[in-house]
C-alpha cells in the first residue's frame, strides 16, 4: 500500500475488502468499490499508455466514458475484452489488465524516439501519405502495430447475452441529483418509471462531492434516502450499471445493463447473461445525463498526472486516492473551487490558478480558509515533466483578450488539474435529430429544458446548462410538473427542502486554449484530442489548408474519432476551429452525435440471436428420413435441404453421379416439400392469374397444371412455378423455395391496392403439404404399387395433369410434372403423413433400387434440360425473351399483364441483350467456375469487353462431359445447333487466370425434343 490512499468520510470504497489485481503482469492491491483507474492511481502508476502518433507517455485524465488514454485489455483468452476504459472497469479480485498501446514496450516506444514522428505526422498525414494507394498495403500492418489498441478475442465468446423489450411511462436517463429527483416525483405520482444510470450506484456528481448540501442535510444522506425511497416503490425500477447508449425515433431508449462484468470470472453465474440489452419504449423521456468537465488546452497538457480538475477531486472524495501531494489547479470558472478546498483539507498543498481577474468572493473566502493558495489572472503556459508532471509555468493573462501580459511564477507540482468548464452530455438528445444550441453565458452546447416536449423528450440538470445544484433541482421540479401534467397527473406539491449552500455563481472566463505567447505550432505541443494526438496546431493547420466545415476538420485531423468519441475534446476543438476560422462557435456548430454513446459489444446487440438461434431453421416433414439415410444437408433460405446422399466411401462427385444416373435410367426420389405453395380461391382467381403471370390461364381445365413465369412491372422474371387448377374457383400455385414469402406479399399488394374488386383469397400452405417427387423411367411402376385408385396409364394421366387419389393409404394429390425431364410423379400429402409416404415409396421402390437424391442432383438434372433457377440463371434483368421462353408469354391476353408493357421499352426491346445459352467447353473434363466472365478472345487484355458470365456449371454424368448455362450478349443468335455454325459461337470463359475455349449452344443438353417426360 502506498501513501496515495486517504481515508475520508463519504468515500465509496470499502477499506475492509482488499483485492488484488494485475496490470502488465505486475500485482497490485485495491479495494472493493475501486475502478481499475482509481486502484492504479492509488498504487502510484502514472504512465499506462503511449500516444497514437507520437508515442508520448500518457496517464489517466478522466473518471468515466470520457477517458481518452487508459484503454485496457481486460482478462485473457476467450474472456478478453479490448479497449475498456480503466475509469469504467470495476475492480474485482484477480482482475487481469494489460496496456493496449506502446510498441515495442510501454517503457520504450519507438515512435517517441527523438520526436521522430512528430515532424512527419501533421494533420492529414494518412491522406497525404497514402494518396498513392499502392503504399497502404505495405505499411498498414506496421502502422497498426505501432498505433496499438487492443486485440479482439480469437476464441468463441463463452458468455451469453439477453434482450429485454419493455414499455414505460417515464424513462429517466441519469441517476445524478436531478435524475433522482425526477424519478422521485414521477414515482410518487404513481407512474411506471425506469431510471437508468451507467455507474455502479446512483448519485452522479454527488458521489464526487459528498460535502454538498441538499435541504440542510449532507448530500450523501439525501442520496441514501432518495435511493431508498425509489427502491421501495413497486412502480419504479432503478437500473444501475446500465448505459443508455441510443435514443431513437418515438422515444425508443436502448440501454445495456452490465450484469456480471464486475464479478471475478470464476464467480460469474453460468447460464446467466453477462449483459442485457434493454429496448424501452417510453411515453416520456427525461434526459438527466449531466455534463463532463473539459480541460483547458495548454502546452504539454498530456503529461501523466495532468487530469481534469473534477477527476482529481473525484479520485479523492469518491475513491480515497490523493493523486499527488502538491496539486496545481487551473480553472476558468467556479467548478474547481470546492475540490480545491477538499484537496487542501486532505493534506495536499494546493495552488489554484484562476484565469479570471474577478473571481467569486464567497468561494475565495472558503478555499483560502482551507489553505488553498489562490492566484487570480494566471494561466498555465506549459507543464513540465515527461513521464510524470513535475511543475508548470504560469503566465499573467490579459483581463479581456486571450493574451499574455507578463510572465508568471514557475510552480512545482506532482498532480495538475484543469477546468475549462462543463460540456453537457447532449448526445442522446441529438441521436434522433435534436440539435444542441450554444449558450454563450455558460460556454456550453446545451439542450433546451423543454427538450422536444412535443415528442415527449425533456431535459433537466446540467445537460441543460443548469450547472449549479440548487438551480438544477428547482428546474427539475418545474420540468417534472410539465411531464406529469402531460401524462394526466396532478402537479405535485413537493415538500422537499431542496436548499443548498452554494454561493451564487460568478461568470466563467471564455477561454479554451491558454496562450503561451507564441504562434500556434511554435510552442510546446498542446493537445485537444489525446486519443488521436490532435493538437491545437493540427486544427489550425487544417484551417490553413482550407478546411471550413467542422465535419471536414474532424475527418482531416481525426478530432473526436477515438473510442471516447471526443467527449473530452470536441468543444475545445470546435472553439479552436472557430477561432482559427474567425467565426463564432455557433456558426461553426458541432459534429454529428450518433449512437452509440459509448461502445457496446457485438454480443449484446446480437443477444440470443447467435449460433443455432441466429435465425429460424425450417425442416421438411421427411427430415428424419434423410438423416437416417446419411444425407449431407445444405441451407436453402431458412430451409435445411438434403444436398446429396453419399454411400460409404463416396465423395460428393461419386454420389451425385450415381443419383443422376438412377433418375435418368431407373428411379430416383426427391423431397420437394420446401417449394412455396399458395392456395388461391374465389371466382376471379383465373383472371387474377392472367394478370400476375405472363402465361394465359383461361383455358386451364380442372385436373391440369401449367408452368408460369411471374414478371415484375419492368418485364423481368421474378419467380416461376407450376400452378394447378383444382376447380374453376380454386388453384394451387407453387413458387421457388426462396421466393415464397416475397411472392405472397407481391400478390397481396396487387390484389389489395389495384384489384380489390377481384374475388380472390390467398393462403400460404407451404408448410401444410409434404411433397415427394418420384422421378425416372420406372417411377410409374413404383407408384403403382401403393396407389390403386388413380389410373396411372399414359393415356389416362398425361404430362401436366394432376389427380386426386390415395397413396400409401393417405389422401394425395399427384402431379405429373417434371423438373428433370424424366417421367415423374410429384406426390403431395398432408405434411403429417410426409414421413410415412416417403418410407412407403422407398419400400415400394426397393426392387427398382429407388435412389434418394438431393439438391445437387436436382440442379444437374435441370441444367441438363436447360431449366432455369430464378435468381441463379436470372438476376432481375432477364425477360422471358432473354430466356428464350416466349412460349410462356400470353401476348394475346386481353388484360395487359404485369410486365407486358415494358417489353416494348426501348432498352428491353433493343438489340444486344444478355440472353441465356448453353456452353460446351472444348475440353469436356473442364467444369467452368460459376461466375466466370465470357470474353471474345483468349488473349484479351483488361479492360476487355465482358459479354456475360456463367450462371450454372456442372459435370453431366448422362453426357459424361461438362455443361454450363450462361448469359451472353446476343447469345441466342450466337448458338450453333445441329452442327450448324453461327460463326460467332466460339468464345472464352475466363476464371482463375485462365481462358477456356467454349462453344455457344442451346441450353437444352439432354432430350431436346422432350420425349422422355411424355411416356
Amino acid at each position, binding site marked *: 500500500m502506498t501513501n496515495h490512499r486517504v481515508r475520508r468520510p463519504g468515500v465509496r470504497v470499502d477499506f475492509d475488502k482488499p483485492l488484488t489485481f494485475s496490470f502488465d503482469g505486475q500485482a497490485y492491491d485495491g479495494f472493493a468499490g475501486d475502478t481499475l483507474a482509481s486502484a492504479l492511481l492509488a498504487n502510484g502508476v502514472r504512465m499506462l499508455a503511449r500516444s497514437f502518433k507520437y508515442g508520448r507517455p500518457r496517464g489517466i485524465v478522466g473518471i468515466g466514458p470520457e477517458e481518452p488514454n487508459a484503454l485496457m485489455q481486460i482478462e485473457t483468452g476467450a474472456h478478453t475484452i479490448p479497449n475498456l476504459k480503466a475509469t469504467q472497469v470495476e475492480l474485482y479480485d484477480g482482475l487481469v489488465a494489460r496496456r493496449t498501446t506502446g510498441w515495442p514496450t510501454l517503457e520504450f516506444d519507438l515512435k517517441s524516439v527523438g520526436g521522430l514522428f512528430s515532424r512527419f505526422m501533421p494533420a492529414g498525414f494518412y491522406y497525404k501519405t497514402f494518396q498513392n494507394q499502392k503504399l497502404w498495403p505495405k505499411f498498414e500492418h506496421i502502422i497498426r502495430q505501432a498505433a496499438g489498441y487492443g486485440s479482439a478475442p480469437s476464441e468463441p465468446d463463452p458468455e451469453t447475452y439477453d434482450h429485454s423489450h419493455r414499455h414505460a411511462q417515464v424513462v429517466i436517463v441519469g441517476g445524478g441529483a436531478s435524475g433522482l429527483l425526477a424519478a422521485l416525483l414521477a414515482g410518487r405520482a404513481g407512474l411506471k418509471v425506469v431510471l437508468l444510470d451507467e455507474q455502479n450506484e446512483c448519485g452522479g456528481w454527488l458521489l464526487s462531492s459528498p460535502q454538498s448540501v441538499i435541504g440542510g442535510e449532507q448530500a450523501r444522506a439525501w442520496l441514501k434516502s432518495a435511493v431508498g425511497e425509489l427502491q421501495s416503490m413497486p412502480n419504479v425500477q432503478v437500473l444501475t450499471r446500465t448505459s443508455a447508449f441510443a435514443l431513437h425515433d418515438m422515444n425508443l431508449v436502448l440501454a445495456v445493463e452490465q450484469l456480471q462484468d464486475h464479478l471475478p470470472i470464476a464467480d460469474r453465474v453460468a447460464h446467466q447473461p453477462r449483459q442485457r440489452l434493454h429496448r424501452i419504449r417510453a411515453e416520456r423521456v427525461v434526459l438527466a445525463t449531466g455534463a463532463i468537465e473539459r480541460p483547458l488546452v495548454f502546452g504539454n497538457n498530456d503529461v501523466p498526472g495532468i487530469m481534469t480538475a473534477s477527476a482529481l477531486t473525484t479520485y479523492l472524495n469518491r475513491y480515497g486516492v490523493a493523486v499527488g501531494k502538491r496539486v496545481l489547479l487551473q480553472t476558468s470558472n467556479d467548478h474547481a473551487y470546492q475540490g480545491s478546498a477538499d484537496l487542501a483539507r486532505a493534506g495536499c498543498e494546493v495552488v489554484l490558478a484562476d484565469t479570471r481577474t474577478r473571481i467569486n468572493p464567497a468561494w475565495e473566502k472558503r478555499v483560502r480558509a482551507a489553505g488553498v493558495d489562490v492566484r487570480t489572472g494566471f494561466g498555465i503556459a506549459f507543464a513540465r515533466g515527461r513521464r510524470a508532471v513535475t511543475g508548470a509555468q504560469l503566465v499573467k493573462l490579459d483581463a479581456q483578450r486571450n493574451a499574455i501580459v507578463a510572465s508568471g511564477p514557475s510552480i512545482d507540482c506532482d498532480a495538475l488539474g484543469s477546468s475549462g468548464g462543463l460540456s453537457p452530455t447532449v448526445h442522446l438528445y441529438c441521436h434522433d435529430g435534436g440539435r444542441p444550441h450554444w449558450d454563450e453565458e455558460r460556454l456550453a452546447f446545451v439542450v433546451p429544458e423543454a427538450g422536444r416536449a412535443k*415528442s415527449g423528450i425533456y431535459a433537466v440538470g446540467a445537460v441543460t446548462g443548469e450547472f449549479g445544484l440548487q438551480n438544477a433541482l428547482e428546474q427539475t421540479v418545474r420540468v417534472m410538473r410539465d411531464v406529469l401534467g402531460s401524462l394526466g397527473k396532478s402537479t405535485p406539491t413537493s415538500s422537499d427542502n431542496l436548499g443548498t449552500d452554494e454561493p451564487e455563481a460568478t461568470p466563467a472566463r471564455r477561454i479554451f486554449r491558454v496562450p503561451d505567447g507564441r504562434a500556434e505550432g511554435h510552442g510546446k505541443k498542446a493537445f485537444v484530442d489525446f486519443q488521436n494526438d490532435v493538437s491545437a496546431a493540427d486544427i489550425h493547420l487544417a484551417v490553413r489548408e482550407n478546411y471550413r466545415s467542422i465535419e471536414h476538420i474532424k475527418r482531416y485531423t481525426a478530432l473526436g474519432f477515438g473510442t471516447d468519441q471526443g467527449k473530452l475534446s470536441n468543444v475545445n476543438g470546435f472553439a479552436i476551429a472557430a477561432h482559427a476560422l474567425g467565426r463564432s462557435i455557433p456558426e461553426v456548430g458541432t459534429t454529428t452525435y450518433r449512437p452509440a454513446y459509448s461502445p457496446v459489444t457485438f454480443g449484446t446487440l446480437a443477444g440470443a440471436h447467435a449460433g443455432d438461434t441466429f435465425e429460424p431453421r425450417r425442416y421438411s416433414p421427411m427430415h428424419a428420413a434423410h438423416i437416417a439415410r446419411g444425407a449431407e444437408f445444405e441451407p436453402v433460405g431458412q430451409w435445411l435441404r438434403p444436398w446429396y446422399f453419399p454411400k460409404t466411401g463416396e465423395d460428393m462427385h461419386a454420389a451425385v453421379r450415381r443419383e443422376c444416373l438412377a433418375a435418368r435410367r431407373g428411379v430416383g426420389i426427391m423431397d420437394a416439400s420446401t417449394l412455396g405453395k399458395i392456395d388461391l380461391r374465389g371466382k376471379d382467381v383465373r383472371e387474377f392469374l392472367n394478370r400476375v403471370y405472363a402465361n394465359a390461364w383461361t383455358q386451364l381445365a380442372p385436373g391440369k397444371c401449367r408452368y408460369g413465369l411471374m414478371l415484375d412491372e419492368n418485364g423481368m422474371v421474378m419467380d416461376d412455378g407450376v400452378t394447378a387448377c383444382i376447380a374453376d374457383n380454386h388453384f394451387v400455385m407453387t413458387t421457388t423455395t426462396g421466393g415464397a414469402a416475397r411472392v405472397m406479399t407481391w400478390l397481396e399488394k396487387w390484389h389489395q391496392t389495384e384489384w*380489390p374488386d377481384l374475388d380472390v383469397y390467398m393462403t400460404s400452405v407451404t408448410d401444410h403439404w409434404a411433397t415427394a417427387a418420384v422421378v425416372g423411367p420406372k417411377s410409374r411402376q413404383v407408384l403403382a404399387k401403393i396407389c390403386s385408385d388413380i389410373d396411372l396409364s399414359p393415356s389416362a394421366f398425361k404430362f401436366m395433369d394432376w389427380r386426386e387419389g390415395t397413396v400409401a393409404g393417405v389422401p394425395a394429390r399427384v402431379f405429373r410434372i417434371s423438373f428433370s425431364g424424366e417421367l415423374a410423379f410429384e406426390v403431395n400429402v398432408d405434411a403429417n403423413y410426409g414421413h410415412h409416404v416417403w418410407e412407403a415409396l422407398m419400400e415400394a421402390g426397393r426392387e427398382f433400387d429407388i435412389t434418394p437424391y438431393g439438391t445437387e442432383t436436382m440442379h444437374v438434372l435441370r441444367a441438363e434440360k436447360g431449366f432455369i433457377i430464378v435468381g441463379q440463371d436470372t438476376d432481375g434483368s432477364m425477360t422471358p425473351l432473354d430466356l428464350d421462353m416466349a412460349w410462356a408469354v400470353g401476348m394475346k391476353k386481353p388484360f395487359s399483364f404485369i410486365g407486358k408493357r415494358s417489353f*416494348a421499352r426501348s432498352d428491353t426491346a433493343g438489340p444486344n441483350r444478355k440472353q441465356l445459352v448453353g456452353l460446351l467447353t472444348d475440353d469436356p473434363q473442364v467444369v467452368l467456375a460459376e461466375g466466370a466472365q465470357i470474353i471474345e478472345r483468349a488473349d484479351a487484355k483488361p479492360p476487355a469487353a465482358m459479354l456475360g458470365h456463367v450462371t450454372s456449371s456442372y459435370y453431366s454424368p448422362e453426357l459424361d462431359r461438362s455443361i454450363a448455362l450462361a448469359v451472353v450478349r446476343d447469345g441466342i443468335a450466337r448458338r450453333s445447333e445441329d452442327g450448324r455454325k453461327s460463326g460467332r459461337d466460339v468464345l472464352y470463359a475466363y476464371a482463375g487466370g485462365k481462358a477456356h475455349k467454349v462453344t455457344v449452344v442451346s441450353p437444352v443438353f439432354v432430350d431436346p425434343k422432350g420425349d422422355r417426360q411424355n411416356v
Partner: protein
Amino acid sequence: MFVLFCPHCGEKREEEEFGYGGEAFIPRPATPEALDDEAWGDYLFMRKNPKGWHWEMWSHNTGCRKFFVVKRNTATNAIAGSWTLAEGRKAYDAEGGST
C-alpha cells in the same frame, strides 16, 4: 425503429411487424399500351422522394397482412396518421393530393 398504428387491427405495433410498401397512390395506368415510353417510365420509376411529409404504404406483415396508408415525415419520422387505403385516399385528396 418507430411505432405504427394499423388501422385494420386498431393497434400500435413495433415497426418490425411491418413492411414498407413504397409511395402511395401511384395507380397503375388502366391501358399501359396507350402510354408512350416516357409516361410509362414515369409510372415505373419516378417517385416524389421528398424531404418532409410523404404518403406511403405499409403492410402489416406479421399481423393482418393488410396494406394501409401512412403519412410520415421523412426528415423527422413524425407520423401524422394511418388510414385504410380508401380512407387514406380521401385524406390525401382533401389536402390536394400533392404533398
